[in-house]
């Protein structure tokens, strides 16, 4: 009997799932799990397939197993959120969704889902970027010090959040603090003995310490979970071939095709394939599934003791500010993979906790960390006082409701001192790591990201502070940046206007800092390319000085619209398409007064699809966009691009 790599089987199961043959996908996963009981990808896929097949209990069990193997797993948390939402447990759905959003705060889809669930639970509110989410953001950008600081601040409030511990372990490992990283990994493994990321990191640390046997044993444990190395691959950055070779499995295990064939035969004998079913089943089907759900009394009986750890706070506020513990590491970790559904893997929050976590009645001004334009939200983005150094903002919240809103307050106070609120919080609990600025929001370029075991270069603000006050920087005790890092050999033009109070040192420091952040010829080139594309697609009007000459009829400016349009029409009819379109564009730029006339003129041209149609579509798109009719604008832009 031949064998197949497990990756092939997983791919086959995924394809089967995509085809809507959920039961078959489930059986493939179950066959794999019989051979590799801790196979992370198989558990995850089983959960997805079971969810689609309406096997809610099995899906939940599978997703919970995934969370024991990787507490930061996106699909597992999302799946559990979906399950809870189907059951009408919106707060639980929100809790899981928030957990996964905190792992990927840049994910618009997750953010919108969190906002939707939160609104369903508590009405309109604001989405605050929590400390855990900030840590994920910093980790993504390679800002390991900041990530570690944020994680520590979170853990100082809720020490047993294993997902944050895991994030901290990654940050510390990347920062080169191997001993501390190893301690954090051990802490995670005490709670979740099969958590694959700490196993991988620990293996790497032991390898670097020369403990090759220990490293091999840890790696073997990790390989039993991350059988195909997909999770390990996420820890490897570009260019880290050595690390990749070390972390990824040496070979992909094979599975006997007979095992799979036996599964399929058994499957066919057991029952015909279920028809494809939506995750959100129709009401009658849901009723059937929900029959087995526990009653209110059973749920009440299952409520954890007050002393037990609680579930995620299900709110739009910082989890760590609530003093709640999202995971229950003390229980169920060992037998998580075989846990029966009777064992409540998700701890329900108590009424007091829910009440304490309820959002404030009124919206408070002051945004903290949304990752895109605030105006899309229709909410008030700023309170000037927030940014006034030395001033505080009245949050009106209880101390235990502190979220990032309070961080903003702390930032305002600390702005003049250049002290990170997260650092202050960490200092208060004795885990201070002064790494300087909290102001840096830029994504650090890939080349600045140090490899495992390397020392992270100081952050922008730290480096800047060093340039301005080297003595003070040394006192902080941060590692000195590599010679020449951040400085440039290129001659910086002596243009710094008008900042009268600037000193040459500061000017050079700022220029070099800009360079270090990647502001240079390549960035300008990228921007030029983007601008050209915007102009070419009609999304950005060219200034007359750099565009084509404005036709005289338009340039005069005093003529009646009919005259100007008449000129454009005459040119078009004469076959001078370019000139005519140039004339129409100029009319578009002249203001909204001509919009209606332009629409009347250009729509037939665009609809005809002849010469000038693409340009007419672009101008129409621009007009509709200016009017706020996004659907029509998109339609014309799309047609314009197709014609091009």
């Amino acid at each position, binding site marked *: 009997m031949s064998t197949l790599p497990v990756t092939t089987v997983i791919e086959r199961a995924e394809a089967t799932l995509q085809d809507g043959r959920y039961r078959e996908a489930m059986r493939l996963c179950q066959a794999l799990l019989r051979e590799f009981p801790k196979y992370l990808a198989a558990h995850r896929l089983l959960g997805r397939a079971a969810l689609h097949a309406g096997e809610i209990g099995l899906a939940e069990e599978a997703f919970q197993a995934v969370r024991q193997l990787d507490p930061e797993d996106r699909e597992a948390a999302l799946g559990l959120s979906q399950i809870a939402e189907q059951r009408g447990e919106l707060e639980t759905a929100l809790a899981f969704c928030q957990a996964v959003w905190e792992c990927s705060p840049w994910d618009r889809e997750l953010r919108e889902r969190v906002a939707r669930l939160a609104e369903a639970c508590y009405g309109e509110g604001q989405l605050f970027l929590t400390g855990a989410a900030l840590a994920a953001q910093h980790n993504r950008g390679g800002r390991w010090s900041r990530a570690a600081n944020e994680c520590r601040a979170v853990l100082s409030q809720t020490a047993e959040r294993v997902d944050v511990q895991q994030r901290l372990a990654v940050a510390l490992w990347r920062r080169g603090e191997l001993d501390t990283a190893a301690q954090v990994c051990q802490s995670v493994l005490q709670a979740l003995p099969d958590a694959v990321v700490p196993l991988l990191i620990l293996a790497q640390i032991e390898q670097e310490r020369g403990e090759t046997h220990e490293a091999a044993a840890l790696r073997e444990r990790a390989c039993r979970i991350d059988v195909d190395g997909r999770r390990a691959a996420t820890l490897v950055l570009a260019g880290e071939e050595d690390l990749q070779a070390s972390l990824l499995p040496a070979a992909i295990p094979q599975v006997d095709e007979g095992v799979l064939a036996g599964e399929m035969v058994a499957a066919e004998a057991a029952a015909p394939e279920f028809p494809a079913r939506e995750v959100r089943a129709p009401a009658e089907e849901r009723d059937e599934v929900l029959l087995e759900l526990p009653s209110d009394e059973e749920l009440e009986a299952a409520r954890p003791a007050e002393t037990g750890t609680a579930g995620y706070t299900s709110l739009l506020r910082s989890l760590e500010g609530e003093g709640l513990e999202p995971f229950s590491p003390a229980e169920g970790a060992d037998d998580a993979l075989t846990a029966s559904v009777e064992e409540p893997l998700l701890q329900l929050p108590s009424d007091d906790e829910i009440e304490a976590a309820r959002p404030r009645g009124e919206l408070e001004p002051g945004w903290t960390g949304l990752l895109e334009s605030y105006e899309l939200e229709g909410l008030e983005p700023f309170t000037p006082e927030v940014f006034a150094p030395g001033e505080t903002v009245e949050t009106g919240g209880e101390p235990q409701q502190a979220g990032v809103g309070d961080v903003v307050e702390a930032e305002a106070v600390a702005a003049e001192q250049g002290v990170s609120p997260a650092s202050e919080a960490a200092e208060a609990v004795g885990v201070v790591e002064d790494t300087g600025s909290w102001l840096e*929001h830029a994504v650090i370029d890939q080349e600045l990201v140090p490899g495992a075991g390397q020392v992270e270069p100081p952050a922008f603000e730290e480096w800047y502070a060093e340039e301005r006050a080297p003595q003070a920087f040394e006192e902080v005790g941060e590692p000195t940046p590599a010679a020449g890092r951040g400085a440039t050999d290129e001659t910086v033009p002596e243009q710094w206007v008008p900042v009268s109070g600037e000193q040459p040192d500061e000017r050079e420091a700022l220029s070099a800092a800009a360079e270090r952040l990647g502001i240079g010829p390549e960035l300008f080139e990228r921007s030029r390319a983007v601008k050209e594309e915007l102009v070419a697609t009609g999304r950005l009007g*060219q*200034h007359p000085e750099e565009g084509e000459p404005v036709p005289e009829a338009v340039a005069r400016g005093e003529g009646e619209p009919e005259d100007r349009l008449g000129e454009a029409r005459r040119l078009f009819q004469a076959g001078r398409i370019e000139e005519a379109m140039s004339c129409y564009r100029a009319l578009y730029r002249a203001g909204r007064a001509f919009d209606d006339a332009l629409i009347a003129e250009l729509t037939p041209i665009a609809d005809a699809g002849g010469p000038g149609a693409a340009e007419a579509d672009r101008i129409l798109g621009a007009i509709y966009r200016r009017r706020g009719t996004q659907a029509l604008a998109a339609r014309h832009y799309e047609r314009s691009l197709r014609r091009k």
Partner: protein
Amino acid sequence: MSPPLEELLEGVVARPGVVGAVVATLDGLVMGSLAMVDEDADAVGAVASLLARSLRSSGESSGMLAVSGGRVCVAAGEMLVVAALVEDEVDGQEITAMLEPLVVEMEGWVRPPEG
């Protein structure tokens, strides 16, 4: 509902020699950008923030910084900072002067209503 800040930046970027523009908070959080990829906007926002603080500490509200490849023109308000990437051959002073009323207008859009 505020208008997209990017629209307010269009007038800047449409000018010859201006290759991109960013509006950010004074602590560097990018609120909008035009003709820039997100990562670049983050970087420019961070530098603009630092420039703005430096300018404000010396009583100025606008200025520009020469960098390799061009210049960063900045105008700082009470809450926001607007930055434009400008080619070397362009009159940066003119662009900077253009940014000053723009940042005031933008702050008008984002400032919470009084009362």
